[in-house]
């Protein structure tokens, strides 16, 4: 049995955002992660702080090695993605805020501690994209119903 499937058959996908402080795109990545974990897919996801992975926190390392991760990087250094991989985890999908912004140019994020309206909207758009990945991972993890033998009486 897949160890990533809990007793409720819900796979917990780990969300790891950027930890860049003082950077607008880092803030967007964290806002998107909170949106996914708290509002959009609260039952199927949980957050792991990049800083804990850097510190080698056992519980965090265990999470990323046990469950698939979706990383949200604030810049092309891709610290979140690299750190999950270095911690023995599997990155199911890596998002970069910049790539999402390129597809939604009207949503230009500004602000650091507090995002502007466009930045908040961009985080929500990004959260929806992450949610689609979470759903796909969840679907793939469900035990498949066998149809063999259905017509054999």
């Amino acid at each position, binding site marked *: 049995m897949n160890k990533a499937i809990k007793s409720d058959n819900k796979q917990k996908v780990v969300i790891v955002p950027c930890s860049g402080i003082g950077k607008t*795109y880092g803030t967007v990545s964290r806002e998107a992660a909170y949106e996914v974990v708290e509002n959009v897919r609260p039952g199927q996801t949980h957050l792991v702080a990049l800083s804990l992975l850097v510190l080698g926190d056992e519980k965090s390392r265990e999470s990323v090695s046990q469950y698939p991760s979706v990383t949200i990087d604030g*810049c*092309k250094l891709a610290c979140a993605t690299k750190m999950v991989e270095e911690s023995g985890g599997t990155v199911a999908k890596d998002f970069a*805020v*910049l790539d999402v912004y390129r597809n939604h140019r009207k949503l230009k994020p500004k602000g650091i501690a507090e995002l502007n309206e466009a930045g908040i909207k961009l985080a929500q758009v990004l959260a929806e994209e992450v949610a689609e990945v979470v759903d796909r991972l969840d679907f793939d993890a469900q035990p498949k119903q066998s149809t063999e033998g259905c017509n054999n009486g």
Partner: protein
Amino acid sequence: MTEYLETTVDKFIFRVAKDCFYNSEGVWARLEGDRVKIGLSDFVQQRSGDVAFAEVKPKGKSVNFDEEIAVIETIKVDISFSSPLAGTIVEVNPAMDEAPEVINEDPYGEGWLAVIEPDDWEFDRQRLFDAPQYFSRMKQEAEEEVAEGNE
């Protein structure tokens, strides 16, 4: 093959292509045949951050020396850049529309901005910095910025 002058400032390594001339904003110009290719220096791209969008004036447009030729939007800032020479734009790098991150990945190569047919390259060239001159300016600027950041 392009050779570089290189310096390390704090944790950053900056390269200056020896075969280019530079304006004060760090726009490089390299003579290729009878045309001049332009782009952004390694220092400029590192200081500006990941490029989100790059808009270069279109093919066929004439530009004067020091006239705006491109606007770059990065994760940190929006910056306007001036042309290091007068002439007519004969080619714009198609990657600027599709994948402007090439400016960050390969500033002196695949990340070029445009090719210009010069009005008078010999004249404009003398208004630019050669590689060693730009290298000194860039190094000083980088060291000052690092010092300010550490204050």
